[in-house]
């Protein structure tokens, strides 16, 4: 196979830089694998490792510092057949730590080559996430205060199924790289090297020293047995193929006449767990069965089963512009929490507003007609009160008709749930 190195742009690193050797070794690995240019995408980010993409005549994407894995993820999911090779430095590992963890956990078939030279070469030799505590680097004393990161241990803990720590000077590096690329899943190579431009100006580090340092560490050589599992992309496509296609949203034909002319505004004041939002949706659907325009604006706390839940509904034969409540036709009072959130609304009510109020809930003094109901006495449970109250709004001449309500329930519910809902409406409608 031919070299995939870019003849027009030969590698330009500082004299003695380990990156230079790794560039050529990577090219050897590609050649040994018989890979052609269009089968490879080199993804890199910022720093000296970010020069790699320009030295190869392959597909290439060079992006922001620490984010190479993010682009690689999108590329690989879009084109599973591509060999996606990511180069990052120890700097990129620091700033993009979350992406490294996610890549290890996800196990998408990417190959990450970390060109680890223990400092930020390009910006003046500042300390990185892997700088030893006793190193003398361009960050004054700061590196003495932060413990260096063991990339391999982190990757292993995060679930990477293939982790290798090796020297950029190793005679088998091309084979190491080939094995990592051929591994079906996320593979990471922590490749240690020398940065003569910055790091070794004040620190002694040689290929030999790297070799003996590596020998003292617990070996990390490829497959991590406890992390072996199905590759993400394959898994994703298998799971996706089992998903059922979602149909178009339901279209509802108008087949009823609305009981009242003009815009009707309804407010449901309750609390979480009362299925306020569902009841609001049913009221809107009922409106659609009469050809009315509708809007549903909800307010609830981010907590589940705690706090107020409010639904503001508008049904109108005209286009609905403003979605706020100006002059409610009906307010359904189901819980004190909802009332407390909307106390000010009661000050402005007129005589023609109907307030349907559950017994025991206190509301501010107002001019509206108040219709007290005791749903509990009818044996209706609190989570059903909102739905039950729609039956009262379906009394003759009110907001909707019983026909509209029944039709809405039939579009929203099926089977036993529908039967129960219809039964509930019948019971509450008798009030």
């Amino acid at each position: 196979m031919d070299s995939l190195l870019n003849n027009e742009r030969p590698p330009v690193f500082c004299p003695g830089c380990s990156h230079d050797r790794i560039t050529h070794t990577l090219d050897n690995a590609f050649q040994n694998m018989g890979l052609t240019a269009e089968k490879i995408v080199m993804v890199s980010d910022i720093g000296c490792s970010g020069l790699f993409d320009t030295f190869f005549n392959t597909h290439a994407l060079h992006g922001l510092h620490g984010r190479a894995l993010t682009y690689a993820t999108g590329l690989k999911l879009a084109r599973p057949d591509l060999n996606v090779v990511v180069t990052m430095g120890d700097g990129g590992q620091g700033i993009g730590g979350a992406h490294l963890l996610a890549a290890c956990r996800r196990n998408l078939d990417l190959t990450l080559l970390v060109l680890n030279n223990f400092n930020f070469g390009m910006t003046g030799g500042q300390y990185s996430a892997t700088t030893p505590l006793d190193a003398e680097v361009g960050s004054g004393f700061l590196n003495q205060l932060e413990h260096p990161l063991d990339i391999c241990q982190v990757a292993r803990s995060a679930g990477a199924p293939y982790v290798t720590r090796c020297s950029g000077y190793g005679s088998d590096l091309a084979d190491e790289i080939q094995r990592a690329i051929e591994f079906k899943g996320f593979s990471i190579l922590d490749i240690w090297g020398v940065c003569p431009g910055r790091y070794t100006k004040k620190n002694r580090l040689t290929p030999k020293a790297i070799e003996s340092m590596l020998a003292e560490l617990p070996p990390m050589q490829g497959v991590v047995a406890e992390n072996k599992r199905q590759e993400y992309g394959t898994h994703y496509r298998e799971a996706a193929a089992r998903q059922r296609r979602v149909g178009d949203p339901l279209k509802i034909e108008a087949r009823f006449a609305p009981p009242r002319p003009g815009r009707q505004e309804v407010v449901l004041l309750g609390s979480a767990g009362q299925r306020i939002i569902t009841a609001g949706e049913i009221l809107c659907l009922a409106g659609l069965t009469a050809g009315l325009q509708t809007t549903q604006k909800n307010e609830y706390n981010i907590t589940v089963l705690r706090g107020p839940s409010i639904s503001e509904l508008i049904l109108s034969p005209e286009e609905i512009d403003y979605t706020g409540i100006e002059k409610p036709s009906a307010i359904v009072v189901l819980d004190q929490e909802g009332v407390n959130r909307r106390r000010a609304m009661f000050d402005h009510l007129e005589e023609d507003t109907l307030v349907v109020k559950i017994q025991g809930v206190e509301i501010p003094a107002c001019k509206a007609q108040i219709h007290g109901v005791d749903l509990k006495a009818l044996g209706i449970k609190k989570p059903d009160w909102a739905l039950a109250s729609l039956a009262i709004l379906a009394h003759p001449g009110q907001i909707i008709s019983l026909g509209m309500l029944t039709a809405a329930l039939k579009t929203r519910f099926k089977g036993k749930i529908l039967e129960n809902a219809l039964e509930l409406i019948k019971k509450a409608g008798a009030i």
Partner: protein
Amino acid sequence: MSLTLLEGNEAVARGAVAAGCRFFAGYPITPATTILNAMLSLLPPLGGVCLQGEDEIASIGACLGASMAGLKVMTATSGPGISLYSEQISFAIGSEIPIVIVDVQRLGPSTGSATRGADGDINFLRWGNSGGMPVIVLAPVNVADCFTLTFQAFNLAEKFRCPVFIASNKEIAMTRESIDMDALQIPDRVTRTAPPGGQNFLPFQVRKGRGVPDFLPIGGEVPVRQTSSTHGINGYITTDHNEIAGIIKRLKTKIHSAVDQFSFHESHTVKKAETLIIAYGISARAAKAVFNVQKTTKHPVSLLVLKTIWPVPEAVIRRATRDIKRVIVVEMNLGQYVHEIERILPDKPVELLAQMDGRLITPQAIKEKIING
């Protein structure tokens, strides 16, 4: 006629899929989460990909990768997520990567209020990239716009190879609304153009008479380079200031010179009206309510609803204000877009009705502004 009850966010998702979107990545955030939910149910059965990223930066990064592989991509977030997207937005602008970005705005600053609406990101979307390059921002008013403008956003992203924002708002996104799906005005799909065969492909070369480079995907037969660095037409770093100046200028003009092609707006005019209300997003609906009431009174007003926010549709604004003596800009923030209107209309009095407290601006407040100034 039949009607459908649909939430704004679901309409965005369905508009995206209709436009050909096959890759979505996002990170959950109220009030944008239901777009992620909808894409997760819509895309996988179509062979598309929906990914929950480890954070916002990863989500948009994955989109950029997938877009470079040739897919139509979208991400969605709210103000705090746009903050995190910023570096990747700059990348998409400078390196001409098509993407649709939905900002379902919530009350800021910072984490602000997750479930309160606002239009506080209008200038942030325009200016939140390093380099200050122009972007396209469309603002839906209702659930139908959520569908059609998202569709248009994909077409524009493909045509101009750039990020296109949908500036939604909690009050549109999480409000359910009736919509006549059969009446939607759906444009034809646009897809980025491949270069003519028979010549060497240079990733940022622009054919004569065009403003946008042709596109070949990463992963195709011809090796393609993409880079976030200042590049020449070959996709390699350049230090040639003439080449740099040419590309930077093109990034601006390709969008600015074309704004008349996509100046989405609604103009409601009453002949004898001396006052024009300019509004966008959810506030345009309160303004429309006022317009409808006032049009039969002695004091009618005209209304201009802008749906293309950036680049500023200057021709539309000039046309709408030709016979107008007074302009009122209504905004759900402290007054951002009003400065654009003042810039375009230096000879007319421009007033501002601004409110930023998590509540909708009411028709009553607009009416009072008209009467009392």
